[in-house]
């Protein structure tokens, strides 16, 4: 199960809308071993593509050094699909390399950059196996 504040959900969706029709991507960090997402870190999609995302390699290094210095984990790794459902694709699954992360997918296929319906779903991806999980949205108590 992913427990996340409404504020963080809103931040992810806003980022996805902003980057549409390119895929948006980023991380929500949280205290190490807490499984609690607290800090929103939008990343640049170096691929700038409507069908692919990738963190720039130097952005990635800086991110991981920062997480280590803060004693944080990448609790959520999120990205958006802009024309397809919010379900991990084969490449999403094959490149998922953080076994403890919650992989959040947002789809902006219905409304693009505008307000309106969106899909927000979360998955665990471990050893190539995808398991959808419940998303419990609370008011920001962290």
């Amino acid at each position: 199960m992913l427990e996340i504040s409404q504020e963080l959900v809103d931040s992810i969706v806003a980022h996805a809308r902003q980057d549409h029709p390119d895929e948006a991507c980023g991380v929500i960090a949280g205290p190490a071993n807490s499984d609690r997402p607290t800090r929103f870190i939008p990343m640049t999609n170096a691929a700038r593509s409507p069908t692919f995302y990738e963190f720039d390699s130097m952005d990635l290094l800086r991110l991981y050094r920062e997480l280590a210095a803060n004693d944080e984990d990448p609790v959520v790794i999120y990205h958006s699909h802009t024309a397809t459902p919010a379900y991990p694709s084969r490449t999403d699954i094959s490149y998922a390399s953080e076994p403890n992360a919650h992989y959040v997918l947002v789809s902006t296929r219905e409304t693009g950059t505008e307000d309106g319906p969106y899909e927000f779903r979360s998955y665990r991806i471990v050893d190539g196996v995808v398991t959808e999980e419940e998303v419990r949205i609370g008011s920001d108590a962290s």
Partner: protein
Amino acid sequence: MISVEIPTILRTYTGGERAVTAEGDTLGAVIENLETAYPGIGDRLVEAGALRRFVNVYLNDEDVRFLDGLAAEVSDGDTVTILPAVAGGAPAAAVG
């Protein structure tokens, strides 16, 4: 002696260790040295004689793709950091 930082997903090869040491004067030699100590890890990093596309390897603070890749020269005291790429893509057609 070279320090090597191991990402979570490769710690199954190193018995859970997040930092190990290795020897070598090029990145390629360091990876071969790692393979000797932690069999199987080399195949996660190298394919057909080149670094795998979606594995990022850094020598100190530089992405080795901007140096000489596997031929990059490594010196005593250097740190090699391995980070799998964070990447993915939507299917070409909506078949999921």
